[in-house]
Every structure is written in C-alpha cells, then in structure tokens.
C-alpha cells in the first residue's frame, strides 16, 4: 500500500501507522452520556468498501491524516491533513 501524504507525497505503507476510524475526530465532551461514548469509542460501521480513517505519518513528517480508503481493495481514495479536515468541519 502506498499513501500520498499531503506534505510529503507518495510514500510506502511502512512510514504510516493506522490510528482508527475517522469517527475519532468527533469526540463527545465530558457532559455527553455513556451511549455517546460507546458509539464513539466502540461501535463501528466497519464497512466493506470505502471508509474514512486516521493515519499518522509517524516515520515521516508526523502529520495525522484523514484517509479515505476502500477496505476491500485497499485503494486509497483521498488524503487530507486531519487538522485541516477538522478545522474545515468545525
């Protein structure tokens, strides 16, 4: 697998570390209930197909990326800096 880091370009999988589903970006605050926590931390759509997830380019520029990827074909469908994606969404 090769992932295109928005900062570094096309790089080998071994430079990156998977960091879980991109739902981690939308963290419930301390006043949320345990159902919200359960949904955030544990329950997953776990799709067989395109999904959004977080990767860290930790053997590279150490940017966290939001990656759109197909879990059946492993095709990388898009990458963005997580911080920018979060700011854009926020």
């Amino acid at each position, binding site marked *: 697998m*090769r992932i295109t880091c928005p900062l570094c370009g096309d790089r*080998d*999988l071994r430079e990156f570390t998977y960091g879980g589903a991109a739902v981690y970006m939308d963290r*419930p605050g301390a006043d949320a209930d345990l159902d919200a926590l359960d949904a955030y*931390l544990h329950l997953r759509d776990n799709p067989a197909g395109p999904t959004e997830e977080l990767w860290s380019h930790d053997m590279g520029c150490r*940017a966290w990326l939001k990656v759109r990827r197909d879990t059946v074909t492993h095709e990388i469908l898009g990458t963005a*800096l997580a911080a920018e994606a*979060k*700011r854009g969404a926020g």
Partner: protein
Amino acid sequence: MRLDTGGLIDRDAPLRFRFDGKGHAGLKGDTLASALLANGVRLMGRSFKYHRPRGVMTAGSEEPNALVQIGAGDQVAPNIRATQQEIYDGLTATSQNRWPSLRTDLLAVNDWLSPFLGAGFYYKTFMWPRSFWEKLYEPVIRRAAGLGALSGATDTARYDKAFAHCDVLVIGAGPAGLMAALTAARGGADVILADEDFRPGGRLNAEREEVGGLPGHLWAEETIRTLAEMDNVRIMRRTTVTGAYDGGTYGALERVGEHVGDLPDAAPVQTFWRIAARRAILAAGATERPIAFPDNDRPGVMLAGAVRAYANRWAVAPGKRIAIFGNNDDAWRTARDLAAAGVEIAAMIDTRADAAGTGDFPVHRGAVVTGTRGRLGLTGLSVEGAGGREEIAADTLAVSGGWNPAVHLTCHMNGRPVWDAAIAAFVPAENAVPGLLPAGAAAGRMTTAAALASGDAAARTALEALGAAAPTPDVPQAEDGGTAITPFWHVTGTRGRAWLDFQNDVTVKDVKLAHQENFRSVEHMKRYTTLGMATDQGKLSNIGALAVLSELTGRPIPETGTTTFRPPYTPVRIGALGAHARGSGFAPQRYTTSHEASRARGAPFIEAGLWYRPSYFPRPGETTWRESCDREVRMVRDSVGVADVSTLGKIDIQGPDAAAFLDFVYANTFSTLKPGRVRYGIMLREDGHVMDDGTTARLDDHRFLMTTTTAAAGQVMRHLEYVQQVLRPDLDVQTLSVTDHWAQFAVAGPKARDLLDSLVDEDIADAAFPFMSCGPVTVAGVAGRLFRISFSGELAYEIAVPARYGDALFRALVTRAESLEGGAYGMEALNVLRIEKGFLTHAELHGRTTPFDLGMARMVSGAKDCIGKLATTRPGLNGPEREQLVGLKPVAAGAEILPGAHLFSEGAEAVRVNDQGYVTSAGFSPTLNTTLALGFLRDGRARHGETIRMVDHLRGVETACTVCPPVFFDPEGSRVRG
C-alpha cells in the same frame, strides 16, 4: 546426453560438480538439471507421500520433482530446484527425502500401501487409543513427511533488502517482456526489466525460431544489449517478481550469489527488493501442463517444452529414444526439434484424430498413452488408439497438455482469472491488479509474433497512462501460428494411478474420492487432497484437477472455479525477507551518553524501551546483584546517588494554548502551574485507563517540558500529536520530542544539594529552589536545566545538559558523588527506592488500571474536560469489586514476595474463584530491612492491616502478607523537602 552441436552453453568452460557424492562434468550455462541429464542421470528425487522415484519434469522454477539440497554441513540449503540452480565449479548437490539412498528408499513401502493411503485417510484413523496419536502415530508421520532438511544451525548467509522505484516494471524478459521494455524505454520511461532466468530471452532461448531475421536467442541478446546501453533501463537478472501488493508495490527476489561458489565477502547471496512501479507489465510467459495417465510420473516423463528446451538451449537430449504425447500443435515442435537434433523419435502421439502435422517419425493420431514402464526410469509405454494397443520402447516421454498463462501475480490481489476457450486456459482478468498489464503468453498471446505485438501494446498503454509520448512502432517479424489445441486432461478407462500433483502424490482417483465424499467445491477438494499445496503451488496440477472435478460435477471448468494463487510466486527464503534482522539487527539499540562510563564501571545492562540502562554498579567484593543493589539504595538514602534518567521521554510543548492543551491531555490541571514549577500528572487513554504518568515543568508562560516514562515515550508523543492535530487543532500549540537532545541525571540523597552546589553557578538552596522547582542553570559554563523532582523520595534533583555534554557531566557527577561517599546507582536500586515510596511504573500502569484503582480518582479534575474523563465514569471502572493498589509486607520479615503471584484470603483455596489480586512489584528494602511489594487487591484500600495469602504456584512459594498503604517509607514526604 550432450548433443554435439548447438546450445547456449560454453563448451570451452567445463565445470565439475557432485550429485549424491558422485562427480560429474558440466558446462558454463548449465543448470544442475541440464548437467545431470547431460550425464545421463535421470533419477533426481522422490515424491512426498509415496516416495516414488522421480526425474526432472520441467526446465523452470515450477519443477515439482527435482528438488535437491545444495551445499553440505550446517549451511546446507534444502528444496532447491535443479532446474534453476546454475552449476559452478565445486557445486555439491544431494537428493533428499529418501533413506538410505535415492535408488533404494525404504519409505517407498508407502507406495505399496497406497491403496490404503488415499486422500484424507488420516482423518479417519489414528484415533485409538487416544494417547497413541501424540506418542506413536504423529511422530512417525512427522519423520516421514517433509522434503529437505534444515541443519538446525544459524543460517550465516548474507541477505540484503532494498527499495527500487520506476515508471514501468517489466516482469519477464521473453519476447513480450523484451519488446515491452524496449518500447517503454524508447518512450522515455524509467524501466526495470526483471527476469527470473540468468539468461534473458525466455522461450526464445528454448525454441528454434527467428525474430526479425535473427535466431530468436540472438535477437534477445541484441535487444538486451540495446536496453543495457540506455540510461533509463535497469536489467535485473536472476530476479523473480514474487508478489503484487497494494499501490503498485512488487516484491522481487534477486538471487545475487547462488550461482557462484566463492561469493565475495561483501556480496549478499540474495536480495529482496520492494519495487514501487507506476505501471507494471506482466510478461511472465506460460507454464506447460501435463496430462494425467497411469504412471505418468516415472523419471523420463517430462513436459514437451522442457524436453525441447534441454535440446535447444542446453544441447542435451534427455534420452536416446523419445516419444511425445500431446493434444496440441506445440507438442509437435518437440518432435521436430529433437528429430532435427538427431534424436530418435519413437512416436508422436496426439489425442486429436485430426491433428495436422507431419514428420519423419511414427505418428499416432487420436491415440493416448495408457501406461508406462520402468521403475527408476522410463523404458516404455503403452499407446491405445484407433489402431488398437501398441507397446513402444522409449526412455523419454515428452508430454504436453497445453500451456497455462502465468496469471499468478494477477491473483495476488484477489483477482480471479477468466477462462479462454481458444487456448483452453485461464487468462488474467482485466485490471486484476491496478496498473499491472499482462502481455505475451501471460495474457494468452501464445505465438511469438503475438507476444511481441502485445508487449509493444502494453508498453504503449503504460506510456499513455504515464503521460509519455510513444515512440515510432518498430516490432520485428516473428512466427505466428502453431497453437491449435483440443482440451484433453486425463486418459480415461484405465486402471492405475494417474498423477495430477506430482510432488504431493495426488492422483485422479484422489480427486474422485474427494468428490465422492462431497468435497466438491474446489477449495474443499484442494484441502482434502492437498492438491496444489506442494512447492509449485499448483502451477502444474490445478488445472488438471479442476478439469477432473468439472467432469465429475458436470459443470464446465470456468464454473467449477479456480483456487487462489497467493504470494510468493516462487518460494522465498525467510532469511531474505528477514534480511538484516539476524542477531541484533531486529530493532534499534539505544545507548545513553553515560553508557561508556557505566560500562567502564562494570555495570551490566538491561533493556528498557530499546534503551540499554545499567542494572547496578558492582564494587570490589560484591558477588551478587543484591549486594550492589542494597548498597546503592543505602547510598541514596544516606548520602547521594547519581542515575542516568535520559531515557525518559522529554517533550517540548510551546504556544499560547500550551497550558490549555495540557489541561486537556492530563487528568489533572496544569494551567494553574506557575512558571518555574513542576507538577506530577497522570494521562488517561480515552477509555479512562491510565496511559502514562510523569512530571511536567512550566518553563515559561507558553512553554512546558513534559516527561514521560521510558517505555511509553513514543506512544505519548504520538498521542499528543493526535490530540493536537485530530482533536484540538483549534489550540495554538506545538510539540516536539527532545528526548535525544538532552542528557539528564538524577542526583538523589541527603547530600544531593552539596554535590550540585559545587557544579552549578546558581543558588539552589531550598529557599531559592524549593521542591518541585525548575529553572535554567549553568553547569561548568554549559547552559543546562535543573528540576527539583524526586523518584526516590529523597532530596533530589534532575540536571539536564545538551546530550553532547552528557558523558562529561555523568563522570563529573559520579566522581563528586563518590567523594561524598555516594556514587552511581542503577535500575535495580531505582526500583527498590520507588517501591519504598509507592511510586508507579508500567508494572502497575499496565493498561488495565484506572485512576480509581490507583487511588488517584481525585486527580481527575472536575473543573475541566480531559481525555478519558467521560470513560472513567463507567460503572465497571469503579467500585469495590475492582482490584486496588496496595502495599504488601511479609508477616515474617524477609519472606519472599514474588511479582506475578496471586493473592487469596486466608484459608481460601488458591483457585480462580477465590482470586483476590496479584503482586506487581517487589524488592528487598535495605532501608526497612524487609521485602516490600506493590500489588492490586480487590477492594484493597478498605483492607489495610488485613493478612493476605500470597501464592505462587509456579515457584512453589506461599507467603502471608500484611496489606498496607503503598507508601512504605517517609509517608509524610519530609525528606524530599529537605
């Protein structure tokens, strides 16, 4: 035997080699197989299950029979294909999986027992009596199984791994591959041409045909010369592309030095390549397939294309009298080429009644081979056709059931090949591997002309995708035709065993039995019979078995399906894939700046988070680690000790929102911390469990320095980046790991201030620099930092200087400490000191503990949100049923407490349902003259004073312990404030 003329071998370069102890002569350019055939050796191996005598069948890496061991002694290499091994002077090869000799193999008794050893027989027996499986049956089976042997000694061969990048990777240097490489290179692409063989050219080296007016092998030679002169082309010989992976990544094994006897010192024997290619062209050719008929496995029965290859490329006639059996026009080439080479053709047997073709030899149209003779080598065969049955004397039978395109790489990413009725074979599905373009025979283009055209076309497709201009077309003339085929898989109406998978001894009967027992899906048939699981991964056998299954089920072959080919295409040594890891190469080794000085003091080292840290510093007269450890603990309690703590993670955190950031990642509050002060913090995972602990210093308003534990330094750093970038990009803060930038030493003990006073310029008296202070200091003219923190409970400091001064500072600190009756201390003493104080390490913070368990629930600030806060409110993470941190002391001072032992109430049996907790850390405290331990005990905080039973089944120790608070020494903390 060697033919008098022809061949791509160097008749002026004779080489000597040995096979099973006997010396032979070969020529440069020979493989072991060609050289053995040239010497009249036909028996080269034994089959896996029945130990049937076997000779070479193929001329390539798919060889199932002629597997030998190369070398001798503890560096012997098993399962080497004689068809791939180039000979060199002094090569030693031995046959394998036979005893006592290749000619006389006692396990051939299995062949006599074969009526009882059909597919899956072992699932139905060996069950009585129960204990006999492990004691008797299985050991016997294991000894009989296996092919070659490992010596059991360290593999000392040199291996390498490397990366390569290119625009176009061309896999295979036959006509299609050469043409593809040429066109791609002329279009300006950066090309890698990888070929499995040591001589590029593919089938052009094995056939008698012309390309562009030249003999095919000369055209190949010329084309390789042209390519070699181009700067944008890399030619990799002896390189098998073994796997297709995601994103245009290919694995490839280069056999750098297996063909030479004396490898230069620096050279690897193999290099494993990871090739990142923007486009790849699969020009791996095709593999010929056998036909199943009774006793089709005798030495001397070979594939027709291989027989031709031995004659044309190596000038070797595999026999004196050759019969050919085929269902296609290509088989006739073997008859014609061998006849032209002067070899007697006993018969050309074609299953097709209407087969075209003529030759100056007996021809049997519409006929089949129904049996063979010859125990250790073929002597004759039976043919049946319209004209009845005929016995034919022959020492070689060349068989061709057609050719299978080498689709394997296109299956590595779950692609399923598709059936092409025209060639009666599977061809690659379109876009089975993104960016991989099949060409030539691999794509089902079976003639040389079609292969050349398809290689050129694939290169043009690749160039277009890369945005490069295609060069002017220039494809040479070549033969086009002679590929007609009528599918024919196995001879029916005969008795006897007809082999499908030669190595694993799977016959048509086995497939029939599998079907009879309802193993009817291809995968079931394969798993039940073990077909296709031999070292060729079914390259020769899969299609034949599919055809048999298809007949049995009445479903056509494409509906019957195909099994998956998985990486690697040909087997790859673990040593090559694991290159550089042997010995210490597996993981980085990290050394502190004080390493040399510590070593000079005789310290043994232990590993901690890839670092090496000193265990203790033995002094003359000390004979055990305990003596040194006890002395070092007393030293710290009584005078002063010095320890290197540089391995703890150090993270520089800066920005206007640094304080808010820390409030978010720590459970407790840091925004209230004043500049120049230090605070202990615990950090949670989002699931409410403790991730790590440590101190963080506020250097100024917008700058903090965080300390992590050694083991969790990397995890915490990544976590901070995660929080900063993924969760809170709204905060203006930056983080940087500075662990390696600073050398940091703990100076601990009542005389710590005395020691440091003499080293630093600044006033560090208690008033100016109280407990939990930090600030810049000047150490012998060097700008450093001083922290008044303590992991020992003593008056203590940690002093940090840029790493390049670490060695000097450590030596200076230790020398001064020694002058104060102190000295260096190691991890053992550090551990005892912290246990005495109830401080935590990852023995306690093992990922399952919560702030509640540790008695730190109140540290989780109610005034703010933080990572993990919500999760700590889950009912399961709180409550008396949870095991809580306690101290443990033996009732009888000095009795053993062992980490890993479990805790039980007095009088309760030591079984799971009574389990109350466990010991995490223990050590002998010279300070309190008893063993001390930390552990987790159910509802432990409510049980201080209770006597509890520690049981260690594994080491046979039971100790009555008193439960107490986890801080054993100076619970008021007066000493650190001294």
